[in-house]
């Protein structure tokens, strides 16, 4: 008898878990984000904190710095006016969409490519940057292009599109998915893999900090980055798109590109300038 009681208890609790999981609660994300942000005069952006040139928390003053950070600030000023505040929340490739969906952040500007699979879950702004996937290897490596990766071990970050791409282009490559790009690089450095793959801008930032490593083979995909916004937030999305257009039109955008990517070896900033 006692056993049955235990079993019943377990089954009941499992059912409870499943019911809880099933009932889609209405989180903050279903409210009108644009109205809320105008009231608080703040847009909360999900940004990367570990990518030099793009989004990096400077350990000296604890502030976020990078191209995406500056762009987010510029767009915020266009959307909310001169005194608008941009608040930054650190996200990873893995946590960014869940954090957006549960309302912790209003928008994602974190090296996220516009992909059909992602479009099913969230909406995107117009593309604000054209990146492409590339490979980072040690300076003396025999790997020259993506085709050389077959039979090799490649590191990348979990939740990034790079993993799917590499599995299509070099099906025999073994992919190790580490929690973030910094750890993917550390794993590469300690010999857990022969190459690291992800978008060229991210790798460029890593190559600047680690002169023993270089980008090879150019890009083999096109990854248009978009700002991620919750579904049903059309007002907010339109406002962001308008802000982005203005930032490009008044020349701020190109200034930011020059500021962050003007001096990166192996990266042609002229290709990504916008008119």
């Amino acid at each position, binding site marked *: 008898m006692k056993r049955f009681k235990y079993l019943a208890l377990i089954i009941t609790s499992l059912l409870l878990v499943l019911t809880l999981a099933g009932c889609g609660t209405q989180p903050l994300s279903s409210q009108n984000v644009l109205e809320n942000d105008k009231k608080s005069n703040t847009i909360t952006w999900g940004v990367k904190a570990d990518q030099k040139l793009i989004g990096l928390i400077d350990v000296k003053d604890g502030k976020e710095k990078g191209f995406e950070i500056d762009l987010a600030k510029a767009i915020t000023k266009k959307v909310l006016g001169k005194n608008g505040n941009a608040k930054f929340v650190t996200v990873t490739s893995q946590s960014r969409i869940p954090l957006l969906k549960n309302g912790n952040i209003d928008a994602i500007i974190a090296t996220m490519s516009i992909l059909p699979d992602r479009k099913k879950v969230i909406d995107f702004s117009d593309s604000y940057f054209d990146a492409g996937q590339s490979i980072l290897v040690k300076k003396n490596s025999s790997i020259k292009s993506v085709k050389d990766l077959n039979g090799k071990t490649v590191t990348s970050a979990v939740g990034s599109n790079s993993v799917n791409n590499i599995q299509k282009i070099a099906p025999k490559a073994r992919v*190790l998915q580490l929690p973030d790009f910094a750890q993917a690089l550390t794993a590469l450095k300690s010999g857990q893999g022969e190459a690291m793959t992800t978008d060229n801008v991210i790798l460029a930032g890593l190559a600047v900090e680690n002169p023993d490593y270089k980008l090879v083979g150019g890009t083999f995909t096109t990854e248009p980055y978009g700002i991620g916004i919750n579904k049903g937030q059309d007002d907010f999305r339109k406002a962001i798109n308008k802000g982005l257009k203005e930032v490009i039109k008044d020349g701020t955008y190109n200034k930011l590109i020059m500021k962050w990517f003007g001096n990166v070896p192996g990266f042609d900033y002229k290709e990504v300038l916008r008119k």
Partner: protein
Amino acid sequence: MIKLLVDNWSAFISGFGWTVLSSLLALFFSLIIGSLFAILEVMPSKVARVIGNVYVEVFRNIPLLVITMFFYLVIPLYVVKINGFTAGTIGLTIYTSAFIAETVRSGINSVDDGQMEAARAQGMTFWQAMKNVVLPQAFKLVIPPLGNQFINLVKNSSVLAFVAGFDLMYQGNAIASTTFETVNTYVVVGLFYLVITLPISYYMQHLERKLA
């Protein structure tokens, strides 16, 4: 959720397999290593006691993730190349063995001193007395806390996900971030862990009843 499970069945099962394998290996080795250090801690020799104590205190008080990262990132640089699965399993073994050592030592300590003295008086050596008289009684006493350690071990094996060890948690992260069905994925992952831990739980209870 059923669809998620069916679509990603092979990934879940392979993750499940690596988790079970890692847990079994870590369980086996940590039990042996843990028991050895427990005996060291109660040996008459002071040197042995110090060695045992240092091992237990060091590895019991460092986070599992730190030990694992050390084997994944540092050892390959200077000593020998080890992959994520091995590094995770070694970390798990060392970490758990420190807790098992403490558990078994408390068991040995709660066996009456007279047992050891009587065994020695019969002419047994320290090791003979330990093996034939003290340890059998000690293990019987520590079955419930040992069961806790085993269950913790299985759950802690999720550390493999951080070093690309292809375990259940690793596959869960990968699936959650490609399907975006975060909640469902982790519920399924949780259920898979229950499939491993509940039988351990029941078996330890059964063992406790049988031996008590």
